């Protein structure tokens, strides 16, 4: 059956068959190649009362399973626009591969101090922790963005400078909001001079962190917790999986207390970031939990009026799929 709205979409943008990957299901996939096309698609979705889900490589879906009409892939928007060695930022489109971006930055002796196997837009939207735990979350490294709202407006938010007290931080509140409040079309990300790193097993995680390692993590396999400091200089690296089933949120500095108690197949404690992520097993009761996969109902513990007000301002028609 040919749907009328599919025809309408085809006039604006390249349309392909939908995806059904278990956690993400769409009827069609569209591939905007310009911000205007992106915005046009969103406007059309608003008009036709369609639900859209924005994604890159679809590698890190978090939250409720998605059943959307239109999957908006950012993969055609994949250019690195500017790398500034003087000002340590990169201006890059949301669909660019994060790994490829890091390779390109390395050629300029620069880096984004995170590991993420997806798109730059995904990196920003998921705001996931990385092993460089003393360097904060991706959100802290986003300097600005071009954002597409649920009304199909293309807006600038933030800048390329490290300081910005000139407007609401729309681009920041989108980070960790998984595309629910709006979509990134382009991002300005802060950089550091390139560094090699390695993992070193340590006994005293607190000491390692206070000695200002790049990061400290705990890895729990089969009941045993090993602690590692991430330090500068080449050497042995650990492979950390990128997809988990649930997370426990805790006070920064108390991650090891949490990981000890949890019953799961595999967990990583991100010391200094207030989060422990786990695979398999059962999420503990009485904790602040984030159900990352296969979640129904309240996955994020985030039933705030402020969020509803933001949704009302940025996506009043409710185009972007309710992952929350």
């Amino acid at each position: 059956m040919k749907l009328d709205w599919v025809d309408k979409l085809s006039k604006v943008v390249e349309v392909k068959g939908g995806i059904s990957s278990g956690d993400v299901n769409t009827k069609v996939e569209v591939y905007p190649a310009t911000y205007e096309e992106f915005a046009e698609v969103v406007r059309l979705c608003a008009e036709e009362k369609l639900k859209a889900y924005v994604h890159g490589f679809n590698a890190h879906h978090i939250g409720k399973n998605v059943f959307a009409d239109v999957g908006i892939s950012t993969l055609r928007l994949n250019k690195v626009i500017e790398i500034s060695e003087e000002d340590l930022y990169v201006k890059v489109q949301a669909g660019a591969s994060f790994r490829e971006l890091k390779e390109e930055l390395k050629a300029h002796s620069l880096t984004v101090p995170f590991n993420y196997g997806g798109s730059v837009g995904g990196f920003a939207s998921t705001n996931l922790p990385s092993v460089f735990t003393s360097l904060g979350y991706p959100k802290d490294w986003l300097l600005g963005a071009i954002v597409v709202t649920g009304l199909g407006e293309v807006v600038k938010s933030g800048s390329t400078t490290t300081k910005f007290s000139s407007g609401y931080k729309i681009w920041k509140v989108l980070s960790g909001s998984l595309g629910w409040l709006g979509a990134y079309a382009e991002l300005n990300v802060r950089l550091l001079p390139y560094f090699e790193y390695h993992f070193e097993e340590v006994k005293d995680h607190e000491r390692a962190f206070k000695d200002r390692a790049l990061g400290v993590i705990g890895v729990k396999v089969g009941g045993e917790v090993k602690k590692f400091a991430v330090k500068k200089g080449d050497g042995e690296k650990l492979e950390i999986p990128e997809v988990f089933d649930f997370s426990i949120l805790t006070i920064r500095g108390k991650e090891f207390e949490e990981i000890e108690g949890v019953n799961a197949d595999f967990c990583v404690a991100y010391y200094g970031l207030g989060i422990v992520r786990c695979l398999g097993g059962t999420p503990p009761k009485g904790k602040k939990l984030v159900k990352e996969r296969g979640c129904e109902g309240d996955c994020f513990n985030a039933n705030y009026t402020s969020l509803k007000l933001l949704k009302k301002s940025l996506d009043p028609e409710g185009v972007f799929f309710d992952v929350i």
Partner: protein
Amino acid sequence: MIEELRKIVGDKWVITGEERKLYSFDGFTAVSGEPSVVVLPGNEEEAVEVLRYLFSRKAKVVIRGSGTSLSGATVPLQGEVVVAMTRLNKVYSVEGYEIEVGPGIANAMVTKSAPKDLFYAPDPSSYVVSSIGGNVSHDSGGMRVVKYGPTFNSVLSLKVILTNGEVEEFTPSPFFNPTSIFVGSEGTLGAILRARLKLVPKPKARKTIVGVFQTVGDASRAVVGIFKAGVVPSALEMMDKTSVSIVERSRYKAGLPLAHVLLIELDEDLEESIARVVKVIRDNDGEFFEPEDDAPYWNARKGAFPAMGVVSRAYLTLDCNVPRAKLPLILSKVEEMSRNKGVTIANVFHAGDGNLHPLIPFDPDDKASLRKAIEVGSEITELAISLGGVPSGEHGIGLEKVKFLERYYNATDLEVMERIRKAFDPHGLLNPCKSFLKEKCQPKDEVFRWLWEWD
């Protein structure tokens, strides 16, 4: 209304007489307003009760911290009720790398209340007095932003009260955390009742290098060079010759040579970083020294704003922020403007962030001199924006910079910000006429016209 407020906070903490005029201005001294009444709640419960009452009465409100805003963000322009949060200065908890505080606490008290081996990174020069509520609301900066990021990066979560009277406490989660929208929102979306802040392990050692240059061009090229050499200093400040000469005549004097000076602080990989920085200074025709005791130099830098009192009773502090790469160009243009217009402009600023603070003196008793200062300031800010910069790096838009929004943003950008403001504050109760506006208010006199309108 006044009676109701007195019932909540006690007679002493509702100020109605002449004294209330103390709350008619802030750090942006070029203008003042007049509050109808000032209320100082003594704790969180009282603050909630006061604000709920005022919101229910549809009273216009300015939330105030310590009143050091340099953009006039706390000046009551429409006879608002000023709710000063100064007394909400409790430390609620210190655990791990987190500290939870009331919004009225002074920035300096956060590190003081933290374990000895940790510190709170954001350090605006006003840290001794400015409050965390104000710091969060302006997303304040300081010297160490260049490495540790602005206040934003140190705010984990907030407790706020919205204009519908609801109190919300956000979980410090990486996901769906509305804290982000309140940081830098200048008291326009709600009042901050508590902040959970991040503490960072102190570095083992810090080292200061003082770079001395004969031209502004050399000094600013050195700034860019330091980053290109792969060094991220923990602070990188510039004082130009004019500001050095002023500071050296004030109580903040440190014996700095009369030249363009860079203060460069390093806090990791010391040996390697020092070698690189020294090379950059030399390559840009600079000289340097490594003071044994660097405190007087940083004190001179922190005192550079108040030191302006030596030359003028009043001055404007600009805050435009350019990409570092544009520093040589904009500084040479500012020098040119100063010469051509016969206006003293002292530059003392966060060079590592490209965050300029041209200080432009004016005579508070002479409107013409204020007008000239505003005009020169406007020209510099416009130039910064045209070079890829922003109107405010850290002091905020307040009432001072509203006209630059239409230079920085387009109509759609402003429309979206307006929707956010209206959604949180449908009756326009919070900080009217300031910050992120689509439509500017009617100027009430010529000074506001100079500030808000283009020639």
